[in-house]
């Protein structure tokens, strides 16, 4: 049994939270540069220029890329040969999140659902984080993190289709979600699509899909082909950067497919804005 100390998890999470707020990862940067080169609309091209400049300023001056420093979302793979000493994994991640948001001068964006109050002693500093845990083989803990902004999250949708609607039904649904979202989620965007499983499995899959390296095709060639088709269809919408009209609306489509019940076809669309802040650490 390998032992990992609670404090080491706190520290790793804190550092990751601070670093991710100001450094647009290479995959997102590469996709933005490609979009800038390909974009046909001069207005949208100018917006993309601003986004590239913004990433440079954020990195150099250690300023948050966006004022919406997100809600902290984690996908954690914990090896079954690991023992955590000194506390609970969940508490360590939450403590690291709080320290990162406070020490990094990040915005406290969490509030009570109904009163909308930001109670800093209880939930203020982006607590509790949203944590998905998977138990796997091995003796390491792998933590994947994303700072998920509200603007893009708000346009995400889930629906359970009838099986007869099939592949075409999924395409129509994804198109309707992105068309309706228009400028609101800060395009250019990355679109995560979770298909199959149950209602919540589809939703979690659509979020998990956003954690993949931007534009990296799904290992299953059939799913990868579907991703290409969706990307083509969505870019035909003409929404463009910040919705001002253009050819480059979607940087990448990532699909995760699961087997589902014979009676249902769940599908979920989770949208990631251009400021795709994510990173990972292995302990």
């Amino acid at each position, binding site marked *: 049994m390998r032992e990992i100390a609670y404090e080491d998890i706190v520290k790793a999470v804190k550092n990751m939270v601070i670093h991710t707020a100001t450094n647009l990862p290479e995959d997102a940067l590469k996709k933005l540069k490609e979009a800038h080169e390909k974009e046909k609309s001069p207005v949208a091209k100018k917006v993309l220029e601003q986004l590239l400049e913004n990433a440079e300023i*954020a990195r150099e001056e250690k300023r*948050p890329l*966006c004022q*919406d*420093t997100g809600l902290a979302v984690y996908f954690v793979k914990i090896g079954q040969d690991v023992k955590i000493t000194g506390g609970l994994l969940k508490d360590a991640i939450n403590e690291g999140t709080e320290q990162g948001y406070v020490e990094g001068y990040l915005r*406290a964006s969490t509030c009570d659902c109904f009163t909308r109050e930001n109670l800093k002693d209880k939930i203020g500093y982006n607590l509790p984080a949203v944590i998905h845990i998977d138990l796997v083989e091995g003796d390491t803990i792998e933590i994947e993190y994303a700072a998920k902004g509200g603007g893009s999250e708000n346009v995400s949708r889930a629906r359970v289709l009838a099986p007869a609607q099939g592949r075409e039904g999924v395409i129509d649904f994804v198109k309707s979600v992105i068309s309706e979202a228009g400028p609101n989620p800060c395009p250019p965007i990355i679109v995560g699509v979770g298909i199959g499983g149950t209602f919540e499995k589809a939703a979690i899959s659509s979020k998990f899909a956003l954690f993949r390296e931007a534009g990296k095709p799904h290992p299953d060639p059939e799913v990868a082909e579907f991703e290409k088709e969706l990307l083509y269809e969505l870019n035909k919408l003409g929404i463009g950067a910040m*919705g001002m009209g253009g050819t480059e609306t979607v940087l990448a489509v990532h699909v995760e497919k699961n087997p589902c019940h014979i009676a249902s076809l769940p599908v979920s669309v989770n949208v990631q804005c251009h400021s795709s802040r994510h990173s990972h650490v292995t302990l």
Partner: protein
Amino acid sequence: MSQVHYLTTPLTDEDIMNLKAGDIVYLSGTLFTARDAAHKRLVDLIENKEELPFPLQGAVIYFVGPTPPKPGDPIGSAGPTTSYRMDSYSPTLIKYGLKGMIGKGKRNQEVKDACKEYKAVYFGATGGAGALLGKLIKDAKVIAYEELGPEAIRMLKVENFPVTVINDAYGNDLYEEGRKQYEVKD
């Protein structure tokens, strides 16, 4: 054709009537920040005929909830937030003198109608460009509702703050027009 304007706040009716959807505007002067909770309070004050924390005549409100400033900086990152959440409040503020709003994303028909009727515009700033836009804010002071944290009302001093006219006072909408131009129909 899209034009470029340099304007200083407060804005006048004449300023507004010179702007068309798609025009680029560099704003200088004072902007007031307000988001959801602050908007609710402003509209409550108007309905109760009480004094507002800043003069609405010719004012430009920036929908933003900045990150906390680092020591020595006036403000942290400060890009626009999604505007539709302010749709139910904006027409009242426009009626009482508000001339400009800066945000991102679509507005509803009531806001567009109010812009037409009372001569006001909706500007879009680049969402997510918080580091870049925060740098253009030279001074920031909380003037009301400090307890709202990022949602408090701040008075900002800006120089050449870049925005694009989305909804003008003639009923045009850049989101609809821009999209039509690049949409590929089957």
